[in-house]
């Protein structure tokens, strides 16, 4: 390997294609991650509620779903959804981006449901007992007492999930949906350079997730300070 040449190539690639990587690629990557976590959180909340429900079949369905998703590789799920969804729902025919997004959302929902469930269960049981012994109903206890405290556990974990998904979206490049890894493949095709685009993408992924995780740490600290007040 000739490092001087590689270095020159990286600079050249960057000057020529920086907008492909940084703008187009990151736009797809981050928007896909945001979309995934947003809908993942909504569906994940519902799964968490099912999992804590008093009705056994709801509990079972939620548990089986979570375990299935968490017990199979994400890339395999992407393939499954990518090929099965258009068969099941004709509307999704040749809508690769949507299929991939749905797969990511279904995957994330399982993990988010666990985040929410453990966030709720981490609230001291004494809080529930105190509220219920005042005559407050289950739902009032949930909305007034449990959830406001659980949010402090859930929000930072949800942000970490966003960071994880940002990296996981790279798997979706298998289907050429335009994210940062897809840009790597495109540039590689145009320039016949393999190594250099990867280095650029790695640097961008690293910088973005590094900044994001620092922000989460900041958020976490502020939330904990809220506790002490």
């Amino acid at each position, binding site marked *: 390997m000739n490092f001087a040449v590689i270095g020159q190539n990286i600079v050249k690639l960057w000057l020529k294609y920086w907008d492909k990587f940084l703008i187009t690629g990151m736009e797809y990557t981050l928007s896909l991650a945001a979309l995934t976590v947003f809908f993942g959180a909504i569906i994940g909340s519902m799964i968490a509620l099912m999992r804590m429900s008093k009705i056994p079949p709801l509990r079972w369905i939620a548990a089986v779903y979570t375990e299935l998703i968490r017990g199979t590789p994400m890339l395999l799920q992407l393939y499954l959804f990518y090929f099965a969804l258009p068969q099941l729902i004709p509307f999704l025919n040749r809508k690769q981006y949507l299929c991939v997004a749905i797969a990511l959302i279904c995957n994330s929902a399982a993990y988010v449901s666990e985040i929410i469930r453990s966030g709720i269960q981490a609230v*001291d049981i004494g809080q529930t007992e*105190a509220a219920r012994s*005042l*005559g*407050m109903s289950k739902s*009032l206890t949930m909305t007034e*007492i449990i959830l406001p405290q659980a949010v402090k556990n859930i929000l930072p974990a949800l942000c970490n999930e966003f960071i994880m998904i940002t990296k996981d979206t790279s798997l979706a490049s298998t289907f050429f949906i335009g994210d940062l890894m897809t840009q790597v493949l495109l540039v590689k095709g145009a320039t016949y350079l393999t190594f250099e685009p990867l280095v650029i993408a790695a640097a961008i992924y690293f910088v973005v997730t590094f900044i994001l995780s620092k922000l989460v740490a900041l958020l976490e600290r502020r939330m904990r300070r809220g506790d002490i007040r």
Partner: protein
Amino acid sequence: MATNNELIRVVDVVKEYNKGEVKALNGCSLTVNRGEVVAIVGSSGSGKSTMLRCLNMLEVPTSGHIYFDGVDLADKNVDINLHRRKMGMVFQHFNLFPHKTVMQNIMLAPVHLKLKTKAEARAKGEELLKRIGLLEKANEYPNMLSGGQKQRIAIVRALAMEPEVMLFDEPTSALDPEMVNEVLDLMRDLAKAGMTMVVVTHEMGFAREVADRVIFMDGGQILESNTPEKLFDHPQNPRLKDFLSKVL
């Protein structure tokens, strides 16, 4: 039959855990009259907390009945929330809501359950806080308070519901020694004012002084129930004698 003086009647209550592996209560019966102060004593694991928590159905008995104001709370058709309003409960670890101020802690249930308007609840809260000398803490969060202050606020929070009975589960066990008295003093005042109280306690001096009746529990059963003088000075049951020789 039930005299109108009777507030709580517990009949043959059994509470099992882990599908019968643990029998926390093994056939307990007792009555609590209006205005009466009942202390429950016994060694650790004897079932005192379970007994107390069955009274407001925080633990649902495996079998038996709990009549409150003549209504069987163990009946599945009873709306327990309506009855819990009339039974204040105070916990060992206070369980104040940390994300709410002292005043919000006090006002929350009366306002949300539509028993009082906001203004009424606030006025009541101020009156109660003034009574315990903590009015200036109204807008503080619980973490700014000492243990004794927290527990007194927790008592006041329960009182704001204007309950017919107050249930205490070792209210001073988690406190530093120098804070025990401020809580016991408040409980003493309540008793003097005629509040019906059931108190699980390790404070034998307090039980002797304030209780009208003391109940000794062991192995999930009520082994002796008597006036404090008789129970402490002339214990009958050998287990009680053994217990008293250790704690007195």
